[in-house]
């Protein structure tokens, strides 16, 4: 009975995901597409839960609910603000190869599905089992954290590089034009509502505690630097949206330091391990736990700040005046 119901649930979930994906692409209204994409993220979190991947559900919750949605909505805002409706109807471009593309995408699906389903389930020792065997020898109990920061630490190091590059790119694109939106629109003429101060006051400490908890929980269960950083970044987005922090034309020394500290500490740890005659990022057993913890703290900060800067679209951030309605 439970098995059948589980199957029904999965099938419904699959159907809903497909429906949402199709509607994101085909909806005539951009706003509807954005909302549906956010809902798609919610259902992806459920799918991760069904696939026994709580780490990913956590990351999806933190990034999907906190950052992606706000990023899309504020871009939408910038695209519609000050737009004078043109007298002629917007011309929708119809490509000549429309049908062919649909056909190709469908063909791609067929080939992908066929190829993927015909791969045999591996019978020998898989990479995961090797990692599980190695896990006994590492400092942290959680397999995914161990993979991220120990066995495949290169991935994480390079990911920090990508994040930094994205921020630099966004700054090159938008930074030269001054703050993204000098009109800090939260107030829009009406003044702040007192509710917002209460909201920010109540949520900020809770979100910071949650980030700390996730960082600490990463050693033995779902959590870790990524999720903690994303949750902190969501707090930054909330503060930015309510005018508690405002864009600044340039980043101070502290902010620049925070931007690179993740990569810096990681690289330094790698060089130290090299200097002591080990492989790059192969921590000595006695120091593995403190080193991983130190790297995780640095990574959390270096993940949170770039995401806030990407959202803000500016080179730096500064504390804003706190707004109180009379």
């Amino acid at each position, binding site marked *: 009975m439970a098995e059948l119901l589980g199957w029904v*649930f999965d099938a419904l979930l699959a159907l809903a995901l497909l429906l949402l994906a199709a509607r994101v692409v085909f909806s005539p209204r951009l706003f509807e597409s954005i909302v549906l994409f956010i809902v798609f993220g*919610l259902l992806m979190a459920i799918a991760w839960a069904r696939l026994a991947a709580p780490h990913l559900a956590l990351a999806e919750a933190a990034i999907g609910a906190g950052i992606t949605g706000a990023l899309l909505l504020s871009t939408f805002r910038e695209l519609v603000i000050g737009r004078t409706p043109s007298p002629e109807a917007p011309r929708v471009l119809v490509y000549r190869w429309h049908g062919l593309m649909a056909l190709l995408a469908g063909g791609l699906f067929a080939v992908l599905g066929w190829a993927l389903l015909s791969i045999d389930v591996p019978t020998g020792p898989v990479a995961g089992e090797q990692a599980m065997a190695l896990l006994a020898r590492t400092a942290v109990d959680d397999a995914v954290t161990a993979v991220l920061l120990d066995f495949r630490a290169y991935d994480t190091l390079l990911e920090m590089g990508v994040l930094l590059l994205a921020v630099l790119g966004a700054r090159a694109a938008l930074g030269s034009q001054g703050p993204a939106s000098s009109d800090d629109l939260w107030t829009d003429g009406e003044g702040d509502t007192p509710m917002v101060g209460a909201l920010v006051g109540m949520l900020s400490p809770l979100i910071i505690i949650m980030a700390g908890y996730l960082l600490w929980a990463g050693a033995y269960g779902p959590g870790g630097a990524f999720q903690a950083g994303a949750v902190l970044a969501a707090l930054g987005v909330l503060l930015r949206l309510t005018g508690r922090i405002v864009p600044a034309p340039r980043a101070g020394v502290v902010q620049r330091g925070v931007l690179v500290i993740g990569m810096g500490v990681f690289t330094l740890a790698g060089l130290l391990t090299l200097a002591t005659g080990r492989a790059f990022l192969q921590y000595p057993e006695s120091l593995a736990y403190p080193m991983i913890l130190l790297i995780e703290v640095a990574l959390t900060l270096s993940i949170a700040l770039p995401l806030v800067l990407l959202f803000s679209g500016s080179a730096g951030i500064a504390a804003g005046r706190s707004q109180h309605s009379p």
Partner: protein
Amino acid sequence: MTAVALGMATFLLLNLAAGLLRVYRGPSGADRIIAAQLFGTTTVAMLALLATVTAQPGLFDVALVFVLLATVLTVAFVRLPSRSQEREQ
């Protein structure tokens, strides 16, 4: 008991799917955001039920993150300029 929890989760998923009709119909942006809030609450309930079914206590943390960050989306939405939500893009 597992079956009851899974059945409830399925029921909530069906509920969510029905609510998608409101996102489709609109008419205003506020309606769509209200529907998204409903989906957020439903997702939290489903996560709690699935955590019970599959014995994954980590999922309660996921639910916690969802409710902590639920307001970010609304705050981002209310910063949209007036009436822009209905404009076709």
